């Protein structure tokens, strides 16, 4: 008995010794900041002066002015532009690439390239491509289009750049999903006389549901946090037409020096994303079947 208790204590000590460094990191740089941002949302701070308690003032200010409302709306439109379009293009590309034509692997490699590169650097390249007078696109088109300074075009232009960056990532997952579909199922459908269209809609698409779900979850969450491309391309302008939430948090904190308001926005973004994640998890557990694994 005593030796078993000793063993158990020893394994507890080993466990916590192994865990100590990472626990320090998780507590200091993940959990503590969440508490700090919550605390800061009730304070007023301009980066230089003292931090003072202001109660719910920041919440009132953020929820009553239209600036944050605009950012939420812009972000929502952005997500609704980016996610469906890149999912469709990715699904299309994956369908073509899984036909085992020679050279498919090369195309797949090329399509993924933007995904692994720095979004900021790619954003700067696109900033030049879309520049009004000496930009590559307008030179090619032979006319001057204000891609990034026309409030009606700026958000779609930023969305297009982000879609361009993400398509390869989405394609990769749909390729994996399509290749996972057992050959017998497709063979059986073919014998039953299913054509290509029927095969896609009634066999492949339903079987891709776990992949589809995964792709939608991850891309919705990442699109909600877009920052680098917006910073490079438009800095939130013109007329706040691309002022997504992450950019607003940054400008509120480090341009307007209102850390309290920035903290409120960060708290709201955190709540929104956690709710989305949990809702999707619940839905996932209920609806998606893993029969294919």
């Amino acid at each position: 008995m005593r030796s078993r208790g000793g063993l158990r204590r020893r394994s507890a000590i080993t466990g916590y010794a192994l865990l100590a460094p990472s626990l320090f990191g998780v507590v200091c740089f993940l959990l503590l900041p969440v508490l700090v941002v919550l605390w800061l949302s009730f304070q007023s701070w301009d980066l230089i002066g003292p931090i003072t308690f202001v109660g719910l003032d920041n919440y009132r200010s953020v929820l009553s002015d239209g600036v944050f409302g605009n950012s939420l709306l812009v972000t929502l439109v952005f997500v609704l532009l980016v996610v469906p379009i890149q999912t469709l293009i990715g699904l299309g590309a994956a369908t073509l690439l899984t036909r085992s034509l020679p050279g498919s692997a090369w195309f797949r490699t090329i399509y993924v390239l933007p995904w692994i590169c720095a979004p900021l650097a790619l954003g700067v390249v696109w900033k030049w491509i879309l520049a009004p007078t000496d930009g590559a696109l307008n030179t090619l088109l032979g006319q001057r289009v204000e891609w990034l300074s026309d409030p009606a075009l700026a958000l779609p232009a930023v969305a297009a750049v982000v879609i361009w960056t993400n398509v390869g990532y989405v394609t990769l997952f749909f390729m994996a999903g399509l290749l996972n579909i057992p050959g017998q199922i497709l063979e059986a459908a073919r014998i039953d006389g299913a054509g290509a269209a029927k095969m896609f809609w009634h066999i492949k698409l339903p079987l891709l549901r776990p992949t589809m779900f995964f792709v939608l979850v991850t891309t919705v969450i990442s699109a909600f946090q877009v920052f680098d491309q917006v910073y490079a391309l438009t800095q939130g302008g013109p007329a706040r037409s691309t002022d997504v939430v992450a950019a607003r948090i940054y400008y509120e904190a480090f341009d307007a020096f209102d850390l309290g308001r920035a903290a409120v926005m960060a708290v709201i973004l955190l709540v929104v994303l956690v709710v989305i994640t949990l809702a999707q998890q619940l839905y996932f557990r209920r609806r998606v079947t893993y029969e294919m694994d």
Partner: protein
Amino acid sequence: MKWTNFSKTAAIYLVLLLGALLTLGPFLLSILTAFKTREQFAQQSALSWPDPFTLENFALLLNGPAQFGRAIVITVLAAILILVGQLICSILAAYAFARVDFPGRQVLFWVYLSTLMIPPVVLVVPLYLMMTEAGLRNSFWSLVLPFAFASPYAIFLLREYFRGIPQELIDAARLDGANTLDVLVEIVVPLSRPIIATLTLITIVSHWNSFMWPLVVTTGTEWRVVTVATASLQSQFNGNWTLVMAATTLALVPLLVLFLMFQRSFVRSITIAGSA
């Protein structure tokens, strides 16, 4: 029948090629422009070949006030330190979660996993305050510390992998008198090379590319990383696109080379990263 098949295949290749052209275009434009003189850039089409071929943009970038060379060194050093710290801390933690029985294991693992839901954007403001209070703002350590201790994500992936290592191997080593660290160094880590390689790629790529945190926590050229240096070049030399494209080329090409070298593990790492 044969003819329709052929034209169908041709149409597919046409679409795929168009996609490849659209994907590669911006990279090629960036690289072409980086080797052009300002005069050629002003006079000729964006698609023209560099003539004369010049390295003056890179020279100006590396030797000029932008201190781009310094930025590259700082980015590489920070990424290496983050990588080493993360790997060590994550391997230790993952082994504890996979193979050591200690009270609170389930709860702690759940806490680690739940931190995956925290969006990085949310952490920027509080971390900035914490770094300021610690007197570490605008320092090399402010780039490294928040990421060097552990990545719950890496811990999750490693734990899955460690659970697949046969317990008999570990027990046999134990009988030979090996302690936990011996087991880790001699058995677990060598057997986990593929997943460690994957994590290495993910970590290096994400920290070479990271932007918002370095932008916030550093000021001036001293501790600037590559992405921040590129962004500030663009606003400082707006319109000097040959210089700016030299910067984006330097920011992009190392990863393109890395990707082409380790293509297979990269593709696998993205799909693993995704399915976690």
